[in-house]
């Protein structure tokens, strides 16, 4: 009996018998590593199951940036904003695979300029001469789009009393909430969520820009890239895969992914050039 049980269960030791090559997927930290892992680990399982590769989560630490990790090959794939993506393409030849779909099933996102609920700022123009918190310097929603919005309102960086790149959307919101800055710009989903809770006030919402997407390191084999792209396009987080991906609606791609092309980013590329992002 013991022999039978022993021999039956011994089969599990084949775990490492074939090389278990890992593919790392980079994500910017949103809340905390624990909470983000809860969000994204099921997504890794989905990709592993779908493609047969071993997908691992890798959050971008404070001293790294996603585009660099993707570029150098620390991660093979990354969820990446438009600006980071364009930089990664320029610097490292990264490839876009798919763009995230928002709640309205659009592969677009917006930025929002916000202030404290008790602030006297009502329009963008009133921000002139006040302090402003951006997100990460490389961020599309946290920097590029707010810069464009301020520019449209006739405000340049020189017109601000002070400004800072706080490093993340969350930090920008925190900086405005605790009074360090008069106004800030950031990701639509997060700002709307905080505004709903009454913690901040929306000043202006931008037009739509191509959303964040999933990009691959240039050295990833075309075969793997194709499989991953297929898995991303087939992801159905509101339907078939709903139970598999708890809390997925909090991400930037609540509705899954759609095909992405290099041309989608032309306008943003020009904006980046204009504001000296490269």
């Amino acid at each position, binding site marked *: *009996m*013991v022999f*039978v*049980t*022993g021999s*039956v*269960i*011994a*089969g*599990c*030791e084949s*775990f*490492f*018998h*074939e*090389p*278990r*090559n*890992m593919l*790392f997927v980079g994500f910017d930290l949103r809340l905390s590593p624990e909470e983000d892992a809860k969000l994204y680990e099921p997504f890794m399982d989905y990709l592993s199951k779908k493609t047969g590769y*071993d997908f691992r989560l890798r959050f971008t630490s404070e001293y790294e940036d996603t585009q*660099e990790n993707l570029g*150098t*090959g*620390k991660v093979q794939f990354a969820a990446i904003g438009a600006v980071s993506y364009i930089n990664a393409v320029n610097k490292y030849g990264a490839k876009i695979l798919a763009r995230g779909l928002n709640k309205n099933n659009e592969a677009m996102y917006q930025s929002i300029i916000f202030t404290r609920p008790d602030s006297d700022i009502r329009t963008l123009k009133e921000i002139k001469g006040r302090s402003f918190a951006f997100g990460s310097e490389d961020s599309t929603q946290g920097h590029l789009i707010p810069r464009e919005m301020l520019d449209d309102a006739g405000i340049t960086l020189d017109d601000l009393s002070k400004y800072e790149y706080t490093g993340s959307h969350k930090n920008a919101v925190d900086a405005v909430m605790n009074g360090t800055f008069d106004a800030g710009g950031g990701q639509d989903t997060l700002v709307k969520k905080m505004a709903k809770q009454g913690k901040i006030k929306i000043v202006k919402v931008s037009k739509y820009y191509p959303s964040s997407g999933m990009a691959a390191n240039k*050295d990833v084999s075309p075969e793997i890239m194709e499989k991953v792209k297929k898995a991303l396009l087939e992801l159905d987080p509101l339907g078939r895969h709903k139970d598999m991906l708890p809390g997925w609606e909090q991400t930037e791609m609540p509705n899954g992914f759609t095909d992405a092309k290099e041309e989608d980013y032309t306008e943003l590329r020009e904006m980046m050039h204009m504001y000296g992002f490269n």
Partner: protein
Amino acid sequence: MVLGSIKKKIVALSLGIIILTTIVVSTLVYRIFSYHLMRTIEDYYIHIVVDSMESIDEIMYDKYKSIQNIAADGSIRSNAGSPEIIGARLAEYNLISPEFMSLSLLDMNRTRLADSHNAHIGEKEKTSLYWERALEGKITAGEDIEAIESSRFPVINFAAPVNNERGKPTGVVVAKMSVKELQASMEDMFIIKGFMYFALFDKEKNILLSMAPHDHEKMLSESILDSVAAQEVSKGFTGAVIEPCAIHGDDMNNLSFYTSEKGKRNFRGNNWSAIMSLDFERVSVPLYELRDKIIAVSAVIILIVGVVSFYIARSLTVPIRNLQKGVKRIEEGDLDYQVEVGSKDETGDLAASFNKMVNTLRKKTNDLLDANYVLEREVHEREKAEAELKSYATRLAQSNRELQDFVKITSHDLQEPLRKIRAMGDIVKSACNENISSRGRDYIERIQKAAARLQTLIYDLRIFSSITSREKSFEPVNLNQVAREVITDLENRIEEKVARVAVKDLATVDADPLQMHQLLQNLIGNAIKFHKKSEPPSVKVYRRTERKSNNGSFELIVEDNGIGIDAKSADRIFVVFQRLHGRSEYEGTGMGLPICKKIAERHGGSITVKSKPGEGSLFIVTLPVSQGGETGKNKSEQTGDPGRS
């Protein structure tokens, strides 16, 4: 034995089920847990390797930045001061970056201008890769590694071109760093259980650094280059694989984790690879512990189930065996045997029911024995009574026979003296006619009359006693004919009394013809005899209309218009010698009706009378039409009448 096999079956069945279940469950549990355990092991060690590689990247990036900064240092760039001043400056940098073995400035002729240790000043350096790269304006950080005889660790050359303010190359800053510096951040690996070796090698597969807890470091690090891990990591993968490996001839499995260097920021790295190998046996100790625990728990469960099922089986079979024993004892007749009622379950109930059944059986058997005893007693008594009866009947028959013989003899013998008395009377009357007074004559006549009466009486008695003893068999008798013969016989009396006798439509019955004659003669005779003085007798003989209920009987009616009988006397007239009237009124012996009764009864019939004084009488004789196969046999024999006379 059957009971043994029930026990065995229960034990075997429960063991079979539990073994199967245990195998399935433990396999599942083991697979799930071992998968997660392996994932945990994988995550744990891959992080160590990746972190180690990142710290190598960090160090290399740091040194890359350092050499870049030193080359950009104003005092070095201007090449203004004396070699001592530049040497002091380099020494300052060496203090900031103590990992560098030395920091030197070469002029464009490869001659050492200055050195952080002021050593080998003026000596010309041999040409090398970093020099060529510097001439191309490139920074070298990891591309140029040289072996040094005095050290077992190779030396990494860091170099950057130094340009003057106009951008013209004036020299090259060179720093040397032992690969040992990279090892420092990896020494923690020695405390990893089952750690075999760590190897760092460049893309040409030159070993830069290898670490192993034993002296087989070199052997391992060389064999590692042909491993699956090395092939995978050369494709740029990070991962894990298990592969066989021989150390000192021992076959063992190595679990290797591998990753490659990626660089950092603007430092692109050198695409070095690292492999960390662990003794899989040691790493998978938790797995074996898990397996052993599962097997142990399974074995305990199976053992417990085995023991429990054995006891359950025993608790089931013991009562059955007791019952079987009980059945055997009862079969042998021991109805006092009681099965032990052990448990309170169905088998206990069964045992209790069995005992109850045995008690009932015992009670019923006892009752049956008692009843049997009573029955035997009754049979015995009946047999005794029957024997007594038989002897009594025999004696009775004997006595009857004697009596009949006596009657026969006496009646015959008595006739003779009586006839003599009468004859003598006649002789006396005729011979002594004159000598006898009228008074004497009267006396003689009285004597003769008495004698005649006695003769009749004796005759009647003979007939009465002979009725049961007639040997003549039954035969179909036409009663119409018998009645006519009787009327003929009674012709004188009919004429004397001016009587009318009507016979109408009688039946033919199975009977003794002589006795039928006697019967009708007595009844018709009586009807004529007991007539009213006021009117002549009228007798009707007929059959009563048959009724459904008379069961093949025939009712013969003899009706008269005579003096009748009162109801009180109706029964007495069938008793021998019972007379209702004085002899002077109506002569007779009082034997007529008893004879009729006896004849009717001998034929299986009866006789009754309906009458009122002064209104005539109606005698009803019921006779079976057929004697039912008895024709030809004497009824008296059939009814068990004792013997014949």
